[in-house]
């Protein structure tokens, strides 16, 4: 439509470029997390994730060989630093360059590669860029080789080690199951309750209907925070306490206003003819609902199910209040927010991986069911 009067191509370029920039801005943080979750721990702290495909300068510690050759009271050890036992595994490809070396852990890059360092007591050490080193000393070194520190370009390394650790050692597998356990009943149970109520509010005539709809709209915005203390006390006094049953009930209650509202809005829009002709044919309200309304409302039911799934899966507040805080019943969000961020605040690889494990399922649901989600959003707010 815009193009009818002849769209300027300059403007169209500007639009394309601005959209590209916007999409990149929105995407980059998530990509960072994704890339980081596959990187090796040392590499994460040595270079940014945006440099992940390039080599990293890492410092290493190793011990030179011990077979010294004596010549006029000078013992000499030679060899290649990349082939020493302690670091062999990091340099399988063999192609790497040393940029600096040293003899103390405090300053592993004290001397540039290729120079000869005087270590005192008649000891000298030379390490070349290709890794070959020469160590000379005035005393018999015995069978212990010299301690050498060096800084070398290390090829990029991607690993599943973070995932292995998160899924096995950190109780994240348990938390994953717990999240699933909370989410599925909390998604399914409200749907049926809401569908019957929505049908009554949409197609049955009775006094007080308007007031009830207004109440549902009002309850849509009641802050969850209000419900926490009274409901927890209620659960404690009737013996549910902090438990899975408690959180299922809570999520059901909190999800109902949206469910009733969405489904009613959708059901009101169903064609009147179908419903009236069914009634003329003698269908009862119950039959009408089960046979006609429910199947026709599938898109709205799916939309609500996706909403409720995402909301319960991602929830932190309700889980913190209504579930016990022991390790056996922690869900993933609580696990990440309370355990990992606290005790492993500096372990970026583990944090990224745990976060990615927790957002993977919602992302899959999101991308496969986007159509329903969008339709549901629109049913809720645009007329």
């Amino acid at each position, binding site marked *: 439509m815009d193009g009818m009067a002849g769209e300027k191509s300059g403007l169209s370029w500007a639009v394309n470029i601005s959209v590209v920039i916007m999409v990149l801005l929105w995407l980059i943080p998530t990509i960072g997390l994704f890339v980081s979750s596959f990187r090796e721990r040392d590499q994460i702290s040595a270079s940014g994730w945006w440099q992940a495909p390039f080599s990293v300068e890492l410092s290493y510690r190793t011990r030179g060989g011990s077979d010294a050759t004596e010549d006029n009271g000078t013992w000499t050890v030679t060899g290649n630093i990349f082939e020493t036992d302690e670091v062999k595994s990091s340099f399988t490809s063999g192609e790497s360059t040393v940029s600096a070396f040293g003899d103390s852990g405090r300053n592993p890059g004290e001397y540039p590669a290729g120079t000869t360092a005087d270590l005192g007591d008649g000891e000298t050490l030379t390490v070349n860029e290709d890794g070959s080193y020469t160590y000379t000393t005035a005393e018999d070194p015995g069978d212990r080789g010299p301690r050498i520190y060096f800084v070398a370009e290390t090829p990029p390394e991607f690993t599943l080690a973070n995932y292995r650790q998160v899924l096995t050692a950190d109780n994240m597998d348990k938390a994953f199951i717990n999240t699933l356990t909370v989410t599925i009943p909390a998604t399914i149970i409200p749907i049926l309750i809401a569908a019957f109520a929505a049908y009554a509010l949409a197609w049955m005539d009775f006094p007080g209907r308007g007031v009830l709809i207004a109440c549902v709209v009002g309850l849509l915005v009641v802050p969850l925070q209000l419900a926490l203390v009274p409901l927890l006390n209620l659960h404690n006094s009737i013996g549910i306490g902090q438990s899975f049953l408690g959180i299922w009930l809570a999520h059901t*209650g909190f999800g109902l206003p949206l469910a*009733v509202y969405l489904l009613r809005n959708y059901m009101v829009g169903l064609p009147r003819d179908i419903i009236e002709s069914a009634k003329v044919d003698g269908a009862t309200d119950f039959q009408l609902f089960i046979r006609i309304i429910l199947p026709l409302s599938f898109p709205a039911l799916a939309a609500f199910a996706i909403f409720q799934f995402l909301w319960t899966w991602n929830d932190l507040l309700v889980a913190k209040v209504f579930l016990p805080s022991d390790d056996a019943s922690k869900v993933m969000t609580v696990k990440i927010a309370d355990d990992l961020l606290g005790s492993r605040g500096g372990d970026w690889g583990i944090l990224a991986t745990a976060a990615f494990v927790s957002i993977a399922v919602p992302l899959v649901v999101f991308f496969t069911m986007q159509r329903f989600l969008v339709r549901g959003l629109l049913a809720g707010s645009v007329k």
Partner: protein
Amino acid sequence: MNPFLQGIITIVVGVGGCIAYFYFSNLFLDKVLFPARGPKAGQNINRANQIRPWLFLFPAIFALGLYLAYPVVGSFVRSLYNRSGNDFIGAGNYIRLFESPEFRTAFFNNILWVIFVPAASTFFGLLAAQLTDKLSWGNIAKSLIFMPMAISFVGASLIWKFVYANDNDIGLINAIRAAFGAGNPIDVLQIPFWNNFFLMVILVWIQTGFAMVILSAALRGIPEETIEAAILDGANPFQLFFKIKVPQIMGTIVVVWTTITILVLKVFDIVYTMTGGNFDTEILPSYMMKFMFRDDGLATAVAFVIMVVVLPVMIWNIMQARKEMR
């Protein structure tokens, strides 16, 4: 019992119970209470039809009443009692709150959130909706901008930790600063006042997609004649957008704005995971969690303050809904 098994049983009992309730209560109504036969058949059918809506509504009304309506009253009553819940202290908790500087900070920050987040999300959402509208790859762009909606606030906070980290090799912001020659990395979450905005950016990042999807549908719904007429009259693209399109979707913009405002008042996760409320970034929902499990009186008082802030939006929403039904 294994919680997962317990979950499956709950689904079966819950769904089965619902179906059984609806089926048997209808059966009871039609066959036993008001059977459609005998001398009063017609009257009975009418009576049954008057009662049936309430059968359909009962479970929902019960759950809504117990889980949302009762807590509003329950919280208010509880907030008038002291910590143990034994002594009535009237407005004591509220007075304590308003006297504490922490609460005032949280309240002030929350007002910043309520102003900035909906405004920025709606603005970017509208921008994205308009820009992607005529693009051949617009749908892909939209679905990528929409994606953060699926990510939890905790996950989003972690994602943004990799942007804000106080380390040139992890935090994107510090890396960019370093590329422009800045020396030491800074912790943006500790810059007074502005750190609030760095936290808000996370929520804007999440909510822009929501605003975009709804506004983009609204833009599509604008009658083509108005746009054609404007183009024929020589309107340039900017005039077309600001003078023709925006006024026509103003209603939807307001709906988006209020929806995000309500959401802002619920989100405690971002502050909780990013700063734990330190460095003066506390907001009311996260401030409330400080008292949860410790002092129910104060916790409910904070919750009720949030409720009072939400109240105007709630009333406006109800009025809109009633207008639509007429």
